[in-house]
């Protein structure tokens, strides 16, 4: 079973102090640490698990600058067979549709049963590349998978819905599945895997300037702060009572 995994290098923003570069409508990234997008890490793990069970090959694809090789090499160290990095000149201007189109173009000559992506990128949050890719390739897709059982030519996939509902689908290959975090337990690369990664191929594709975008970023900003926290005054017993009151009204007690 051959799988393609689309991965993205993103800045780790959860606990960082962020600044916006107003002129360029983007984050100042000089002081940020970059890594693989979290959901993509689960997507990669799913592909590696299938390769262990069914054999075949895992091919990693990423659209990004040369620095993307850091996360690509780690994916190769974990067990992916080879990689394709697509580096267009106008990378920062690309929208999800353009990225999906670039990937679709590169996959024309590849043989695959499944394409995995993370369900969402933590930097731009579009959740669209996987879905657009499936449309462009004319194959089935399911998004936000939380559980997956795979057979030779099909998979049963669970999607979690609001209100605690679980929806289960069956789909035949080839297909695109976008993966939620928590679906599996991503492995660490072993040292032997790291030693072997250096000899694996990273094919670099440079399509030049690419302009197929459908949406354009207008502005990046921090939303104005909401209502400030309320500070309760009084003795510990009184304030505890007030806190309990609030928790009760919010349905938490």
């Amino acid at each position, binding site marked *: 079973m051959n799988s393609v995994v689309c991965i993205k290098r993103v800045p780790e923003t959860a606990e960082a102090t962020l600044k916006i570069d107003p002129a360029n409508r983007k984050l100042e990234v000089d002081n940020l640490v970059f*890594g693989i997008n979290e959901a993509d890490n689960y997507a990669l793990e799913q592909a590696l698990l299938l390769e262990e069970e069914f054999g075949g090959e895992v091919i990693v694809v990423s659209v990004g600058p040369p620095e993307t090789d*850091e996360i690509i*090499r*780690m994916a190769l*160290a974990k067990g992916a067979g080879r990689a394709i990095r697509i580096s267009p000149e106008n990378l920062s201007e690309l929208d999800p549709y353009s990225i999906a189109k670039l990937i679709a173009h590169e996959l024309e000559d590849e043989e695959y049963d499944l394409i995995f992506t993370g369900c969402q990128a933590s930097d731009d949050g579009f959740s669209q590349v996987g879905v657009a890719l499936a449309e462009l390739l004319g194959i089935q897709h399911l998004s936000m998978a939380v559980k997956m059982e795979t057979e030779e030519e099909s998979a049963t996939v669970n999607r979690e819905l609001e209100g605690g509902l679980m929806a289960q689908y069956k789909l035949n290959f080839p297909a695109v599945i976008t993966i939620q975090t928590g679906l599996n337990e991503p492995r*660490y*690369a*072993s*040292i*032997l895997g*790291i*030693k072997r*990664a*250096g000899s694996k191929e990273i094919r670099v594709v440079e399509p030049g300037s690419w302009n197929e975008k459908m949406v354009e970023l207008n502005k990046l900003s921090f939303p104005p702060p909401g209502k400030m926290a309320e500070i309760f005054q009084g003795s510990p017993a009184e304030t505890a009572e007030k806190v309990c009151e609030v928790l009760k009204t919010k349905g938490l007690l």
Partner: protein
Amino acid sequence: MDFNLTDDQKLLQKMVRDFAEKEMREKAVEIDESREFPFDTLKKMASLGLMGMVVPEEYHGVGMDFVSVAIAVEEISRVCASTGVIVAVQNTLAEYPIVAFGTEEQKKKYLPDMATGKKIGCICLTEPNAGSDVAGFETVAVDNGDHWVLNGAKRFITNGTASDVFITFAYTDREKRHKGMDVFIVDKDSPGLSVGKHENLMGIRATGNCEVIYDNCIVPKENLLGPKSEGFKTAMKILDVSRIDIGAQAVGIAQSALDEAVKYSRERVQFGVPICTFQMIQDMLAQMATKIEAARLLVRQSAFMKDAGIPRFSLQSSMGKYYASEIAVECARMSLQIHGGVGYTKDYPIERIYRDAKILEIYEGTTQVQKIVIARSLLK
């Protein structure tokens, strides 16, 4: 001159950093309290190759260079100093002696299980009356025809309570002092071997540090390690290498002190502003960061020299161990000072880091012993 890590070393650093952060951070607090040897964590590490870094692949290790080992030990120690030294001892004090001095039979017998973490190892040199005076120990080995008989007691043996393989130094001829010393590989189940008091240490508390007792301990003839009567030379060669990793452990501990200081000084507000805006706090942060970089360079340089086969690496590893240990203690002190009162409680990691750091100036050759080694090389 190239200060860049290789692609492999960068990947290793990232992998170990992620692993330590996710798998060890909470555990570090627990095992400091309980003194429990972290078998679970070590098992996971073994599956990644971290328990067999200096062992060649043919003996089921992963055969990494010493710069890589230093990187791994630094990253582990940044999160858990106990686990950092456990891994350092396993790799460079238990496996490396067999890799460097073992016979083919010894390598085949011991290295595969050690490199894959099935067996834990330790080195037994220090005794109650022999600390800095390394050659002053009293344990003896007597040739009894088809086996050796060992008698004596070792102290402060890191990994001791958990060990299966005890690399043991003993005199075969005490009259000859340095020239009558030998090294033995002693199995846990050898008749007459026992583990004594489990030390209740101030820091690095989960390292299974204990006494090891040899009471007419029977050791097979073929378990003599290295050339006969050259135990002292062997010990010095082993310590030259292990100092690199203790230096790396020190850099990791110092870095953790700085990490905590930066984090806390940004959060803590006094006089209406975060305390990191005060110049006296900034002075301490800048000193810590600069000293850590200097120590890291010195330690990595000694590892680089070892990898490149430059004999002078042993002097460099003394300098690295001495300097990194001192600045680790200093960084822990400054970081705790930045924390103020809460730093003196168990609510923040810095009190553990402060306790963990102190051992660095004592074990693996005290600061004073390192200075003697360094000064002697100048006055030769």
